[in-house]
């Protein structure tokens, strides 16, 4: 690699040619503050918070986009630099709705942090007119409050990266604002509810729609049997809400916290992930044997499902008809479990703790109410659960480890890895291969489908057949793969997750700053904790889960049975026409 010599804050360093000043400084452990910068997806040099002094340059330069050159002398911290940054912050604040006291992003807000660091005390120095575009709360999953927007465009880049691009920058000058085409509401355009814009927003301008009050109300209603289920990925992310390191597995503390919040039963969506595998593996085998539609495509990710309904309606038949694990969980709870426990399903209130804002859309979908009542009543994001725990003043880090309740808390390693891209495929292969070959697998690790590459492909020999699989995460990858399928490429089984990296990087996960998102492999670190948990589990194949066996024996009969279809499967709709695009 070609290297160049530069001097930063008086220290000599050699860095790869072509590095930006921002990257070069990191070699010395010098962090330069940023606001608009997101590595690879938003390198636009717009906010000017990252300015530094370069010897000989006429004015300050933006470190996030400015490449280093041989012999360059850079100062990242001079008085001039600090004054410029402070001024930039004061100007941003001049149109900002400064309500940090109650803002949900207080504490994780990048703007707030910078103002604190730079000692911006005179917040209202340039107070002036405010932009008249304010709130859009039309969508079921999120709210945009433009009065807290700093126009960094990170959300626009994130949405475009998802191949959706329904939000952008409208008008110009003082009127510049983030919005949808013709300034229609977000629910009139084909937004897939993924929430990637939210996790990339530095401020409180974009937030999930907070449903914690609904859950608190149910918990305080004595007539309700309130059941909580936790998605596979949230046990390795929830700790971040309490400043624990990225990739901490906090399963035991999470269960303890939920119990202290007052849930009647603390169950695990991992159980339903195992159930999903039973149905999906059976559906796959059925399609292969009986000439059904191939490739079969997974249906666990509601952001992906909505994307398919908007953008690839011609592929709807390829989707597995399996409900997602969240919905299967609710369906089984309000049918089999309700009967077993002698509780009327109308009195059961099911809460899902999900990594995902699209889950809020999913709970409201049609054909998701096996018992006659909605399978799931409320889906909360990991962040909302963190908020409920904080609000209850539970000292999370000091909690003991507790175990899930039975029977819907039983799971296998296969269910656990659903939270990472490739996990569903691997779990399905463990079961499908064993069923097809009619003998125990020697090796349950399908490593080719692991990892954070956008698209992963493999061919496995199963019972004499070459099974061609592909796994993708992030809708850009889904788009690419769907085009390949439409162009005639053969696959048998495809897994799609709506968010890059899968659920561990879902739009409902704890917020990490742009610096962390740019320079730490968040997806891989969180996923590693799931694979570690899988490796430690005594059971690693869904069909070996004793609770699953019991549910089939007592209620469902066998995968794909009439009852299973009624309770665990769903249908999709072509949404391509009912929106502005």
């Amino acid at each position, binding site marked *: 690699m070609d290297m160049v010599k530069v001097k930063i804050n008086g220290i000599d360093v050699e860095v790869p040619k072509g590095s930006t000043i921002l990257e070069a400084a990191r070699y010395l452990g010098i962090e330069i503050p940023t606001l608009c910068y997101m590595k690879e997806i938003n390198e636009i040099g717009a906010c000017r918070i990252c300015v530094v002094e370069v010897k000989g340059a006429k004015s300050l330069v933006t470190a996030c986009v400015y490449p280093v050159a041989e012999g360059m002398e850079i100062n990242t911290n001079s008085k001039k630099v600090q004054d410029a940054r402070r001024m930039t912050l004061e100007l941003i604040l001049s149109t900002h709705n400064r309500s940090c006291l109650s803002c949900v992003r207080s504490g994780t807000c990048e703007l707030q942090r910078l103002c604190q660091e730079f000692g911006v005390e005179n917040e209202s120095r340039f107070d002036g007119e405010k932009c008249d575009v304010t709130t859009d709360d039309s969508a079921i999953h999120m709210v945009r409050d433009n009065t807290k927007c700093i126009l960094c465009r990170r959300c626009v880049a994130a949405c*475009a990266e998802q191949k*959706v*691009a*329904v*939000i*952008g*920058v*409208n*008008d*110009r000058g003082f*009127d510049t604002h983030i919005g*949808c*085409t*013709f*300034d229609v509401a977000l629910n009139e*355009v084909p937004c897939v509810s993924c929430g990637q814009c939210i996790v990339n927003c530095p401020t409180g301008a974009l937030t999930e729609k907070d449903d914690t009050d609904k859950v608190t109300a149910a918990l305080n209603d004595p007539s309700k049997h309130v059941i909580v289920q936790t998605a596979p990925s949230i046990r390795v992310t929830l700790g971040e809400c309490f400043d624990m390191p990225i990739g901490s597995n906090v399963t035991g503390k999470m269960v303890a916290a939920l119990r202290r919040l007052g849930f009647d039963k603390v169950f695990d969506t991992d159980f339903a992930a195992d159930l999903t595998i039973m149905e999906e593996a059976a559906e796959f085998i059925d399609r292969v044997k009986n000439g059904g539609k191939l490739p079969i495509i997974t249906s666990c990710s509601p952001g992906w499902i909505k994307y398919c309904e908007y953008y690839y309606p011609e592929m709807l038949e390829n989707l597995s008809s399996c409900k997602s694990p969240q919905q299967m969980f609710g369906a089984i709870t309000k049918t089999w479990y309700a009967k077993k426990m002698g509780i009327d399903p109308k009195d059961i209130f099911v809460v899902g703790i999900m990594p995902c804002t699209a889950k809020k859309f999913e709970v409201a979908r049609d054909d998701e109410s096996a018992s006659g009542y909605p399978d799931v009543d409320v889906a909360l994001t990991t962040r909302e659960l963190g908020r409920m725990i904080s609000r209850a003043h539970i000292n999370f880090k000091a909690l003991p480890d507790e175990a899930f309740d039975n029977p819907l808390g039983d799971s296998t390693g296969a269910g656990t890895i659903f939270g990472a891209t490739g996990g569903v495929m691997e779990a399905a292969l463990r079961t499908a291969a064993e069923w097809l070959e009619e003998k125990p697998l020697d090796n349950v690790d399908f490593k080719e489908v692991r990892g954070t590459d956008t698209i992963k492909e493999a061919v496995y020999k199963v019972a004499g057949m070459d099974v061609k699989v592909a796994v993708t995460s992030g809708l850009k990858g889904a788009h690419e793969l769907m085009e390949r399928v439409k162009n005639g490429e053969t696959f048998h089984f495809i897994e799609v997750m709506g968010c890059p990296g899968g659920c561990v990087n879902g739009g409902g996960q704890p917020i990490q700053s742009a610096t962390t998102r740019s320079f730490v492999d968040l997806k891989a670190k969180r996923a590693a904790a799931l694979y570690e948990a899988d490796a430690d589990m005594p059971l690693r194949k869904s069909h070996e889960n004793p609770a699953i066996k019991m549910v089939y024996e007592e209620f469902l009969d066998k995968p794909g049975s009439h009852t299973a279809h009624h309770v665990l499967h769903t249908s999709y709709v072509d949404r391509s026409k009912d929106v*502005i*695009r």
Partner: protein
Amino acid sequence: MKKRKSTLPFAGTKEQEAQLMTVIDEHRGDPGALMPVMQKAQDIYGYLPMEVQSMIAKGLGTSIEKVYGVATFYSQFALTPKGRYTISVCLGTACYVKGAQKLVDAITKSLGIGPDECTEDGLFSLEACRCIGACGLAPVMTINDEVYGRLTEKDIDGILAKYKA
């Protein structure tokens, strides 16, 4: 200023659509196609309503929000149609001082349209313009190529009546 959007129903013809499709086909695959295609679309339709922006977005494989962002950033793009007669009232300093705003108000009162709007029958549209160099005649307005000077709001109805005939 935020761009005003048309509330009139879209009245594009098959011929216009065919013309636009030809333009889009000519530019397919060209990464810098958006602005020139939008410009030509505006030449064809006179403005860029949602229906036209949607055709452009689909034709070029981009999002309609992107098209809209560009349309509202550059002043050359209009989101409202032009009438058969375009009324421009000069709001340059001289005209403004001599009461040009009153002319705008009088037109709005008479036709029911504000700046950047078009009457429902498609006859008139109104716009405010910068100094046209006829300060001696302030306040000035033009209707297509006709120039009217030293106006007061009382003159408006009489002038408009000529065009309605």
